[in-house]
């Protein structure tokens, strides 16, 4: 599609999702093979553990124009690496605080626990986050020039 046509077609928001290799990515896979309906606005990056997601990755996505970022991992207690997701939770707490302080809408960033067997939950989560981001519209940073 040419740029012109893209603009004509109206704005389609973009969501970035980080899925941990052991639970959430398998959950996403299950949602796919179960042919569950999901919005097609998200792109997934597979990471070995949700705690591999440095807050800088999330900032980078937001700065480069992603409208929402979701980080998913194993449920607490079920982490493949035993404790990784507890660190993720702390990182998320810090990330939210930094976003709050600089006045950026923290609801554009979400943390969810999704296990390998929770295909429907994955689909529901994506549906829910997609509608949140859709209602929020464009990420204000994507229109800033002096980044």
């Amino acid at each position, binding site marked *: 599609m040419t740029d012109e046509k893209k603009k004509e077609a109206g704005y389609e928001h973009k969501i970035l999702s980080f899925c941990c290799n052991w639970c959430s990515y398998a959950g996403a896979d299950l949602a796919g093979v179960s042919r569950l309906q999901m919005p097609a606005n998200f792109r997934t990056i597979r990471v070995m553990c949700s705690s591999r997601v440095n807050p*800088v990755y999330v900032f980078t996505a937001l*700065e480069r124009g992603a409208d929402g970022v979701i980080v998913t991992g194993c449920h607490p207690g079920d982490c493949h690496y035993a404790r990784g997701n507890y660190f993720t*939770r702390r990182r998320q707490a*810090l990330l939210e605080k930094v976003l709050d302080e600089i006045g*950026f809408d923290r609801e554009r960033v979400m943390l969810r626990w999704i296990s390998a067997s929770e295909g429907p939950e994955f689909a529901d989560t994506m549906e829910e986050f997609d509608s949140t981001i859709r209602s929020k519209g464009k990420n204000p940073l994507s229109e800033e*020039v002096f*980044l």
Partner: protein
Amino acid sequence: MKEGHKGLGVLMDAPDGPNAAIREMLRKGHEGGACDAILVPMKVPSGDSYMHVLVEDVEMLDRAAPISPILTVQGAKAVTSITRRGDEGVCIAAVMRPCEAEAVIELRKLFQVDLGHITIITMDSPGAVPLQEFSRDPEEGERVFAEALAKWDDSAMRPICQTCEKSNSAVGDLHLGLRGVEKGKILLIPQGEKGLEAIAKLGLTPDHPIDEWKQASDKAMARKRGTRKSSHEDLRKRASGPGGLLDLLGACINCHNCMRVCPICYCKQCKFDSPELRNTSADYLDRADRSGCLRMPSDMLLFHMGRMSHMVLSCVSCGACEDACPTGVPVAQLFSLVAHDAQERFEYMPGRSSEEKRPLVTFQFEEFSEVED
């Protein structure tokens, strides 16, 4: 904080001002075998700056300025440079401001300093003169600082010092109480085992109650807390929304000086200097297309936000970043604002204790359920 003083300190005579008294104490300590060398700020020969020096020959102490008017190289960086390759059994007494000592403790948790044989000596800090102002007119800078020290009036000190509610924190193994202490005297307060040991080697016995100093300190700090709150409130309003933040950071010239002088930013290779952030021209064109045009080089906001998320929990608000900014971005005030609230969320205070774990390397099984939305 490692108490241990049991509410008692040593009242020392300081007829020629605190600097002379501290020099005398250091000399005695060196001669009495309490330390083999002393790390202390000293005026550079040209007279327009101060640097930490490692003093082996006590005769040279005459030129030392334990309470220096400016903060140049952060003391924690000086301590790191000595002990980076491990503790070699040389006892060093390091004299610095409380914020510098707090950074030393944070660096210990990051395995960048070895405090085995380092005795840290801190003092009530009257603040520091903005570095660029001092460079422009050192004489005037000296005068302004002497006045601030005499009257404990920080209105001409750096903005970050005016809002610092930890400037009287007894962080070091030995702390020198200056504020609210009888005229012509200073109060030496030992902390923990190291402090008591040092006091013993100085041949002193803690016998003077520190209550009066503590009350005066607490009162002054409560006032500064108020200043900090209102200044943070103002800044938060200015920074709110990405547009506001970009206005605050607008003058940034990507020199990364703030990162280089930051004692907490110890990484050998910073992500923000690495090839990881180099993108293809197609990528930049794409981004420029989205917003119409794009600042080049890009990623200024990402640098600050990223650095914030990396070091803000250990930020001691020493203000070295703001002093080093050539374009006057209020970067220390901004980081201090975020640091204060982030540290509060984790109930963490950098420099409070070297035993305490940094928040991101520990966890509890049940906590922060509000972030798992």
